[in-house]
């Protein structure tokens, strides 16, 4: 029953082998696989939001506001377009980088480094949420509401608050998740079994939050 008789090669052969050899199909810790399944389902939620947003934006006959002007900030006496969102993007990417390093040090079971890197990741995530709060307050002060805004199509407000709010909740949950796991790592909760795969699982969630932001940044802020 080896793959040779199927005349498949490379990656296709490994799929056939994994599914047909009367064993667990996915050769990863179950927690990691469950996290992946959660992320795939979450992908569909965010996709529904973004597809719904695009549909609303295409069908409205009211003018769509200029996102780069709405999210501009005045810096050093100059109006810089979209600058806050750009900074938030860089912060989130940096936090993904520190998380990737934490996952790397999990392979060496280096508790101190894992803890510190996860803490830095959580702090960057918290600052992202803080900037989002600033952005929300600024827009609310300017009169943007879920049902109307002074810059154009009223749907702009509802989509903005829903999509960035839902993403912000994900970041907030991620920060809490990171802090809880970082503390458990430092306390040595995972030393009995020597299984540090929880760091990679937490990392998957965090990178996903970054991944979603890439799509929101492209479709909502830049489009």
């Amino acid at each position: 029953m080896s793959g040779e008789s199927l005349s498949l090669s490379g990656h296709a052969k490994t799929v056939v082998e994994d599914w047909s050899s009367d064993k667990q199909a996915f050769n990863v810790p179950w927690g990691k696989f469950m996290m992946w399944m959660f992320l795939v389902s979450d992908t569909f939620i965010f996709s529904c939001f973004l597809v719904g947003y695009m549909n609303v934006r295409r069908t409205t006959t009211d003018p769509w506001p200029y996102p780069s002007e709405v999210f501009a900030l005045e810096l050093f006496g100059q109006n810089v377009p979209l600058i806050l969102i750009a900074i938030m993007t860089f912060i989130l990417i940096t936090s993904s980088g520190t998380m990737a390093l934490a996952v790397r040090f999990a392979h060496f079971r280096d508790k101190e480094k894992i803890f510190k890197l996860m803490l830095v990741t959580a702090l960057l995530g918290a600052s992202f949420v803080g900037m989002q709060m600033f952005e929300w307050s600024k827009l609310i002060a300017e009169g943007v509401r879920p049902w109307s805004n002074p810059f154009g199509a009223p749907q702009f407000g509802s989509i903005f608050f829903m999509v960035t709010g839902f993403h912000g909740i994900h970041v907030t949950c991620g920060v809490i998740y990171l802090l809880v796991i970082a503390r458990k790592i430092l306390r040595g909760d995972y030393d009995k079994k020597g299984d540090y795969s929880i760091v990679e699982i937490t990392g998957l969630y965090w990178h996903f939050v970054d991944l979603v932001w890439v799509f929101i940044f492209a479709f909502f802020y830049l489009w």
Partner: protein
Amino acid sequence: MENVATQQSENHEEEAQHPIGVYLKVWILLFVLSFFSYMVDYFDFQGMLRWTLIIVFMLLKAGFIMAIFMHVMWERMALITAILGPPLLLIFLIGFMISEGLYVFGNRVDYMGRPAAAERIHVADVLHHDGEETMEEGH
């Protein structure tokens, strides 16, 4: 055959442990790609060029995050297909959204007498009149 397979997956795990340089390079690359996509807005590219560039940079960033940061590159193909297969169906949803959107927009223009191309509103004009913020003219 089975031995070779396990050997390969072990090798892959080893690879996943070592490359600290890979993470740093991807990190810098994501910075550069984000900077480029920000430049698309800064230089105010419009129309097809804007949308194409946005999507290209977006897909590159998403690809690198998944492949390297989320370790998809080092996973077995069975897991990769389980992760990436279902979301491919979204292409159909996007296709339906586009065709349905065009139809609804046409209806609104035809039957509700709405303008096909409305003038977009500049933020500076609105806020300047309210006197909430002083922004430079000519933006």
